[in-house]
């Protein structure tokens, strides 16, 4: 077993970050590297048992999460992910595993049938929590080489980072992303929709509902005067950026605004090149506004 070290974590990329949202994975790994955090990818990780799975197979979704926890426990380090959905699935399974003896027994029996086991020995963390609460302002500020003075950012948390447990930040009025934005010179705007749902998978299955929710988020972000939106969830990112033209037409209002991962903004402030945060992967170009606000 590798000895637990303060700045070494086991990293869970998640399915989305390995596919449609690689920019989040790339920027996350590079930010960590610059800040001296070692993210060691969990070998042979599987789907966390996300919302769509839990909806019809709850018990099995806990077992899916628990397999990852079991593999991570062997490494003896906390498990870190950047995806809000994976974070909640893994974290919730871990919490319920600890709280409910009957569920724990069932999960362990299932894991043992496949030759694994879990003893509840690790924590699940979101990368935003690690960066802000483990490293903090002092360490991050030391590494900032390019400030985005006056860049107005609408911090968008969505649902599954702060809710339901609220253990990273307040579930209604989080400020953890806003604090980080201030460390890189940006100004987090007052943003009424910061914890409102983007609709998640409803954007595909019930597009009229998804577009209504996304439209209101984008409209409010524009009204707040933000130059861009910062997210910490792959599904939020794609929902907020991929339908802007459609939503603008529906609302007869300009809803175009760059949507970045917070790791992309932070990475650029840490001196990473645009390619190192995969800025070109975004459908909403942010280069111009970032160039105008950087010094």
């Amino acid at each position: 077993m590798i000895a637990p070290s303060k700045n070494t974590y086991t990293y869970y990329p998640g399915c989305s970050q390995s596919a449609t949202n690689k920019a989040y994975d790339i920027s996350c790994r590079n930010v960590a590297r610059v800040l001296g955090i070692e993210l060691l990818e969990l070998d042979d990780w599987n789907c966390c048992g996300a919302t769509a799975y839990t909806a019809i197979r709850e018990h099995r979704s806990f077992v899916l999460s628990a397999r990852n926890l079991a593999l991570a426990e062997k490494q003896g380090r906390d498990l870190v992910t950047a995806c809000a959905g994976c974070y909640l699935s893994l974290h919730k399974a871990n919490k319920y595993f600890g709280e409910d003896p009957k569920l724990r027994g069932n999960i362990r029996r299932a894991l043992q049938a496949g030759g694994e086991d879990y003893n509840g020995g690790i924590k699940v963390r979101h990368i935003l929590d690690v960066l802000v609460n483990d490293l903090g302002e002092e360490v991050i500020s030391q590494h900032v080489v390019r400030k985005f003075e006056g860049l107005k950012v609408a911090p968008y948390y969505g649902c599954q980072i702060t809710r339901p447990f609220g253990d990273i930040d307040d579930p209604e009025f989080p400020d953890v992303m806003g604090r980080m934005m201030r460390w890189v010179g940006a100004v987090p705007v007052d943003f009424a929709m910061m914890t409102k749902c983007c609709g998640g998978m409803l954007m595909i299955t019930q597009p009229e509902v998804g577009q209504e929710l996304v439209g209101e988020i984008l409209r409010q972000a524009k009204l707040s005067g933000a130059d861009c939106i910062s997210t910490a969830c792959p599904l939020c990112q794609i929902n907020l950026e991929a339908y802007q033209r459609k939503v603008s037409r529906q609302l007869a209002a300009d809803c175009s605004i760059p949507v970045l991962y917070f790791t992309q903004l932070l990475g650029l402030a840490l001196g990473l090149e645009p390619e190192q945060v995969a800025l070109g992967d975004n459908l909403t170009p942010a280069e111009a506004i970032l160039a105008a606000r950087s010094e």
Partner: protein
Amino acid sequence: MQAVAAAELKQIFLNDIYAIPDGERINQCQQCGTCSSSCPTAARMDFSPREIIAALRAGLLDRVLESNTVWMCSSCYSCTVRCPAGIKFTDVMYELKRLGSRYGYINRKSTTAQMARVFVKTVDRTGRSNEGELMFRYFMATNPLKGLGKLGLSLKLLLKNRLPLRTHRIKQRESLKKMIAEAEKGA
């Protein structure tokens, strides 16, 4: 799918919900409506979250399950964090989705339920959620024409190298299969 009379749904549901941590708090609902007013999709539901509990008490769960209601929940957890009685309403919604799927009380028009089925199949087979495959199978199962409507976005994502055509699989698929089989026994 098991056959069960509508009248039995309430008891089955309550047994299931009591098995979740804090599940018994559902009895503490005083119909204040905080859940409904916090819900981003309540306006689109035939029964709002508050009305679901009223319907449960009135023995009308079958109507709730067959209406356009539970599959409109996006699992945002707003109701859960605000409920003054501490009811984990998102877990209640999950339980209702499963109850309907298991016993055949389901809104036939709900494409979200179909998405969940396709999702589970993909993950069980490969150990991963493969988004390209997921979308393809979902649109083939629901409305291939709507899938064609996504071609523009697909192409944009493809050009950005954001649409993977390779299927990701975990190595220990046999071990995962055994876990899933065992989990079904405990479910």
